């Protein structure tokens, strides 16, 4: 019988945009050392990068010393990526995120949801008001299920991937 196969990465990340690519690249390299499937590793790193970008863009950073938190864990055939960040529970940003996640679930497939989002971006005014393309991308390119939870003033967004 094979020994149990599992992995965990658990680290605080300073709220600095430059850290996103450092962490994304580190995850890519770590998982390239674990799995044969380099394409899967790219998808995994993309998911972490997009979640970290959202956390920095839409988190509540009035206390700039608070870190965000990244956890990656899984076994042979599944993995989770979770990012936690401080959030204002009554903020518009949080409401938009929850609505975006709920909307993803209304489509027949993640691919349909992503294509619809691309068209929405194309039709929108160029003021950045249509965001959250990253969430649809995670679901489609990462083949992930996404869920979000708020406890007190911390938002955690978790993506679940099977392979």
């Amino acid at each position, binding site marked *: 019988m094979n020994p149990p196969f599992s992995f965990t990465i658990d680290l605080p990340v300073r709220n600095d945009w430059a850290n996103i690519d450092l962490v994304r690249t580190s995850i890519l390299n770590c998982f390239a050392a674990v799995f044969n499937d380099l394409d899967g590793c*790219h998808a995994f790193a993309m998911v972490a990068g997009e979640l970290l970008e959202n956390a920095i863009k839409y988190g509540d950073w009035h206390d700039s010393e608070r870190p965000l938190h990244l956890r990656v864990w899984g076994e042979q055939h599944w993995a989770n990526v979770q990012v936690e960040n401080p959030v204002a529970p009554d903020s518009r940003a949080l409401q938009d995120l929850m609505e975006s996640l709920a909307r993803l679930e209304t489509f027949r497939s993640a691919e349909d949801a992503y*294509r619809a989002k691309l068209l929405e971006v194309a039709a929108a005014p160029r003021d950045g008001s249509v965001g959250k393309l990253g969430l649809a991308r995670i679901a489609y390119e990462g083949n992930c299920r996404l869920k979000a939870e708020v406890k007190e003033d911390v938002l955690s967004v978790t993506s679940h991937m099977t392979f």
Partner: protein
Amino acid sequence: MENLRAGDLAIDLVQPLPTEPLRVVWSGKSSDRNPGAILDPFFQQLLSAAEHRRVPVQLRFEKLLHFNSSTIASLIQLIQDARQRRVELTVVFDRKLRWQQLSFDALRVFVGSDGLFTLRSVEEVP
């Protein structure tokens, strides 16, 4: 028009002959927080150059390692602008890289009957 360098991203313009398409070769990574601030002015110059020279634009992504979703949003705007200005735009990517296949195949929603926007995998172009 000059090549673009921004952080880990490099975009190089290649046009061996004045009658050939303007080839725009992306390499490195595009992960800026607001890539539109860098890319949009570059794209406007690119479309003006293509209009002036009356040649198509070919965006080549096969050497690109990663881009974030904000970069995809900027690309969508370029596709819209090129269509509006009647500039032929082709996106070339590497279908063998799964992330590129997924990212670029999804852009087929912008392929129209006007023939102004096309997608090609790298093995289909010279």
